[in-house]
């Protein structure tokens, strides 16, 4: 199912949720320092030629980014080329009109570099916070993505659904360059995959555990569902966690302790056990963690890209307990070494 065509270029992204980096003594930096760190990292990513920086929206104390497009606007003012995206914007607990307004604003400020990725994310604090019931997730998403798709046309919208009645309502600002680049982020629910395809939006699959080949049926489902709507060729990407070190041992030893804390915390909330070193090594060796030397990580990304016939790969670079220098070093290796190696391996 090789659909390569001349000019089809693989995109590389760096994603963060705004985890606080730690100082030399292991103490987390302040929210202010953590936010400014992300801006510095995005600048470095631009200097390295990375295609996109994507920020996740969260509303909990492990992450400082609850308002990604504000951070992206700051990044816009110090960069010129890198695309500015989210991963993800939690549409179900947001207002689609405001999402349009914020991203159209970002698009203007950044000379057309805004991208929004709609999804649920892997946490759910936003629902009670904004007065929504998690049990209505699907209905809320259906309704809001439908309105958002209308708003993207940048024409007056007539609408009567979900308690909102619009009579040829117009929304501003308009973009200069056509519709805001809109993706859907999914975690593996078949229904979400089909829904992304139904709207013809590019899809990003979050793969946070397990071997890449397990996700081949989802890539297939997305492409077949797209074909049913008469579309094809929409980009498909994945995002996964990782860390690139000077050598294999350094990479694993640096990354594991923090990742264990991260996974353990999530596991405790969801009722499963702690994350063992054996599980970690299993995920690095055969699963969804891209941890190792530049060569190792590049080989693994290239294999995944080929297997799933991907258009985009985003590395979530900031999970765990890392110092600013460790994060910047991993980003440097990704940009200077991993990306060129993967391009060479897959030939695009």
């Amino acid at each position, binding site marked *: 199912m090789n659909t390569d065509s001349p000019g089809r270029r693989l995109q590389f992204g760096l994603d963060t949720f705004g985890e606080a980096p730690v100082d030399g003594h292991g103490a987390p930096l302040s929210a202010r320092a953590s936010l400014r760190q992300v801006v510095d990292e995005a600048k470095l990513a631009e200097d390295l030629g990375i295609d996109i920086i994507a920020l996740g929206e969260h509303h909990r104390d492990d992450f400082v980014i609850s308002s990604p497009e504000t951070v992206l606007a700051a990044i816009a003012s110090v960069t010129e080329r890198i695309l500015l995206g989210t991963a993800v914007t939690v549409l179900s607990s947001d207002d689609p009109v405001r999402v349009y307004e914020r991203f159209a604003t970002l698009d203007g400020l950044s000379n057309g570099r805004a991208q929004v990725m709609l999804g649920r994310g892997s946490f759910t604090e936003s629902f009670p916070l904004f007065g929504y019931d998690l049990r209505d997730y699907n209905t809320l998403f259906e309704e809001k993505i439908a309105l958002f798709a209308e708003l993207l046309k940048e024409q007056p919208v007539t609408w009567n659904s979900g308690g909102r009645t619009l009579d040829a309502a117009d929304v501003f600002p308009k973009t200069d360059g056509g519709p805001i680049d809109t993706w859907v982020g999914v975690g593996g629910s078949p229904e979400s995959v*089909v829904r992304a395809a139904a709207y013809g939006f590019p899809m990003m699959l979050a793969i946070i555990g397990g071997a890449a080949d397990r996700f081949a049926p989802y890539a297939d*489902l997305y492409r077949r569902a797209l074909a049913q709507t008469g579309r094809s060729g929409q980009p498909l990407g994945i995002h996964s966690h990782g860390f690139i070190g000077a050598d294999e041992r350094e990479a694993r030893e640096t990354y594991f302790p923090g990742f264990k804390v991260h996974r353990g915390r999530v596991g405790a909330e969801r*009722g*499963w*056990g702690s994350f063992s070193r054996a599980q970690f090594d299993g995920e690095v060796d055969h699963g969804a963690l891209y941890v190792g030397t530049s060569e190792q990580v590049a080989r693994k990304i290239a294999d995944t890209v080929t297997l799933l016939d991907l258009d985009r790969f985003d590395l979530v670079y900031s999970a765990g307990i890392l110092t600013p220098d460790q994060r910047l070093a991993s980003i440097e290796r990704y940009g200077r070494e991993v990306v060129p190696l993967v391009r060479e391996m897959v030939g695009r």
Partner: protein
Amino acid sequence: MSDLAILGAGKLGTTVARLARSQGLAVDVARSGDPASIRLIVEVLAPGARAVAPPEAIAGAEMVMLALPLSKYPSLDADALAGKLVIDAMNYWWEVDGRDTELAHAEPSSSEVVGSFLAGSTLVKAFNHIGYHDLADQARPVGTPGRVAMALAGDDAAARHRVAELVDRLGFDPVELPTLHAGKALEPGHPAFGAALPADELDVLLR
């Protein structure tokens, strides 16, 4: 007619349907609404399984698996399910079900709550403690060293044995717990939840 009807076409439902098809079982997958809405999902993720409406799936099934969000159990047709062997693969999962203190802190297991609702059915709790990704990755033929074990719980010994045979056929060593109540040990927050381990190691977590 089917060997297994699965109510729910999400991650778990499609994963079990795929496993069952790979063992040659006749499988129907159903969800509420028009079955056309899941036809492509079933065709791609569980080739050979049929997408049908719930009444048709239930009526022709040897066994029925509940693989829908737990909070949806009151929408099940208890009359249609009467007399059937029903496998409860659902968990209280606040991320999907919302914060429901009654289900979260039920003294009986969530399967006992479902069992009371489906009073005419014979209920066995199974396929709930191993994550869908491990179900997909870890299924192995009988006798494979280190084969992952799956615990199941039910009051009716004959029904339990039938589900144990299904578990075995789908790639896991069955470990039977003698009552539906004992299945409490398989729920989120208990050591066995999420465990994909061989029988001897799972036994330690169940003690």
